[in-house]
């Protein structure tokens, strides 16, 4: 399962490695846009923009929908959430280790107090 998630992450991060594609995501973060609009905005040919959108779509970062003759692109928000979720899981692994460690630390503290009392007695 970890491997599967990694492969998907690789696709996402590869998609994000290009300046234009990051620009497209930023743009779609503001408003949905057609491929034609995106191509104009980034001063590119339609074919070039279709390729970029294709990469983003494969990575699940963008979804497209064809209505009539216009293909509209929008953010795939779930994918971005997954990326942040992955980072969050790493933090959570440590956080749950540390919560267990808290208990042991508390035990050791109590033991020190008890031992201290014994010494004084």
């Amino acid at each position, binding site marked *: 399962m970890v491997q599967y998630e990694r492969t998907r992450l690789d696709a996402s*991060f590869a998609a994000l490695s290009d300046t234009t594609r990051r620009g497209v995501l930023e743009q779609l973060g503001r408003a949905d846009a057609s491929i034609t609009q995106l191509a104009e905005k980034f001063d590119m040919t339609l074919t070039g923009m279709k390729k970029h959108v294709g990469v983003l779509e494969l990575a699940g970062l963008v979804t497209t929908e064809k209505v009539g003759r216009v293909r509209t692109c929008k953010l795939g928000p779930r994918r971005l959430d997954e990326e942040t979720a992955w980072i969050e899981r790493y933090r959570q692994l*440590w*956080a749950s280790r540390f919560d267990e460690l808290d208990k042991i630390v508390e035990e050791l*503290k109590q033991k020190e107090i008890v031992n201290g009392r014994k010494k004084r007695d």
Partner: protein
Amino acid sequence: MDARRETEPAPTKNRTTTERKSDRELVVKRTFNAPARIVFEAWTKPELFKRWWVPKSMGVSLHSCELDVRTGGKYRLVFGNDASTQMEFFGRYIEVTPHSRIVWTNDEGGEGGAVTTVTFEEKGGQTLLVIHDFYPSKKAADEGSGSLDGMPETLEQLDELLVSLNAGVGRT
């Protein structure tokens, strides 16, 4: 006496933070409400270490834990519920300074393994714990040495993107 203590409210949990410092470094920080000697003890005694290193949420068990915590000493952790799922983590302690610092290698991944430095900084009865993973190369850092120990190389790019996306939302 112990019964009375159990009825006291549990202290609030301190926050754990993670940060990718550079291409090759990953840092985790957390404060503990105890002096450094106590936190250090929980890190270095195998019978205590094995009680917290593998939280139940990981869904695997640690069935062998050998820690010879002294400069030049070795460690070996074996995870997994049977032979087919077994995973080993091992290395050696480069430096051990009681109550303040432990440095070890992560050798299970060969040459790409990180060097981990843990520091225990005591202040006013509390201890700030800092875990610092330093990888020999950016590539090794990206691949990571364990199942969750690595961060993809373009994490910073993603961070920037998320920041700019949020900023974009804020502007509209």
